[in-house]
């Protein structure tokens, strides 16, 4: 374990990217009132925004400058790995009056991540 820990210490941390996350509505006990879908692929963003920021990390100019400053002054944090593009899903559910509703919820699925 110590060797693994040592090795991990020197291993470069993975850079910012989208990771799978399936939200199963029965895990949060919402399946009693959400008729469909049973869950959905939400994804999440995680990873490093290293200096120098590579192009594919979809960074803003501000994030590039902030990460540059971090390289000389570690009091300034690096840019964060966040969703840069989101899309909606629709839910078919029963409301508190037992009426059946089909509603579109925006910004529920991560389509892309980046450093901001």
């Amino acid at each position: 374990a110590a060797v693994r820990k040592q090795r991990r210490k020197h291993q470069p941390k993975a850079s910012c990217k989208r990771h799978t996350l399936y939200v199963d509505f029965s895990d949060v006990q919402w399946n009693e009132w959400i008729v469909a879908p049973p869950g959905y692929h939400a994804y999440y963003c995680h990873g490093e925004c290293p200096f120098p920021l590579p192009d594919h990390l979809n960074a803003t100019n501000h994030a590039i400058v902030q990460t540059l400053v971090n390289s000389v002054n570690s009091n300034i944090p690096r840019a964060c790995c966040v969703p840069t593009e989101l899309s909606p899903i629709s839910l078919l559910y029963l409301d508190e009056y037992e009426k059946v509703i089909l509603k579109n919820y925006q910004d529920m699925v991560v389509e892309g991540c980046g450093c901001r």
Partner: protein
Amino acid sequence: GAAGLIPEVGRRKYNESGKQSPERSESFLNEFELRLLNMFGLGRRPTPSKHAVVPQYMVDLYHMHSANGDHSTKRPKSMGKHAERAASKANTIRSFHHEESMEALASLKSKTTQQFYFNLTSIPKEELITSAELRIYRDQVIGPAPPKNSLHRINIYEIFGVPIGSNSTEPLVRLLDTRLVQDSLSRWESFDVSPAVSEWTSGNGQNHGFMVEVLHPEPTEKDAGHSRRRNGHVRVSRSLHQDQDSWPQARPLLVTYGHDGRGDSVLHTRGKRQ
């Protein structure tokens, strides 16, 4: 199930994390709970009973939106043209069954009328209803070959209430939609009732409900018994039909199409984007 939208496990873990004093963590969780309810547009956590009915039409609309962009293949056959246009602009589609306790059924030889009241108070004020359809199911008429001209006319009226001071009990009504139908087919009929529902939900009109009028061709002597069956083939009341089991799925359904100003329409989904 949990009392609120936050699962009990999550609530307990946060309370035990010691990050906050018990009072503060409780108030943080309650704030987050309100945030979740607001996200779903709910007043409190839904606790549907086992008897809650999910209309097949709403399931069809759900599958229609989840088709990969090509909605025409999944469009429910009986979806009215006006409803299809409305669905393409709405981000919230709601379905309602009428209050059976407030029905007023009158069945004469050549005419059946039924009054429906739909309680629409659960529609939030900020939701603009752009369209609404009243869906009525017609069973195929079984029995001896129906007379050649077995056409029925179905009229849908908005009820304005009984005029004050008049002796008659007949309510004032306005015709919203009408259709001549062949009774040899079993199918859903969709009627456009947008003008009435948009007024009721925007507060510009009082919701006194609808009146459905089914006009049957004059029955000849030999098919007297037959006309009783014909009255029942338009499913406007539980009592008009022997088959009670099918009533929950065959009863009249009001569907509203609205937008609360947040996000894209239901039919504008990832599939379509891709």
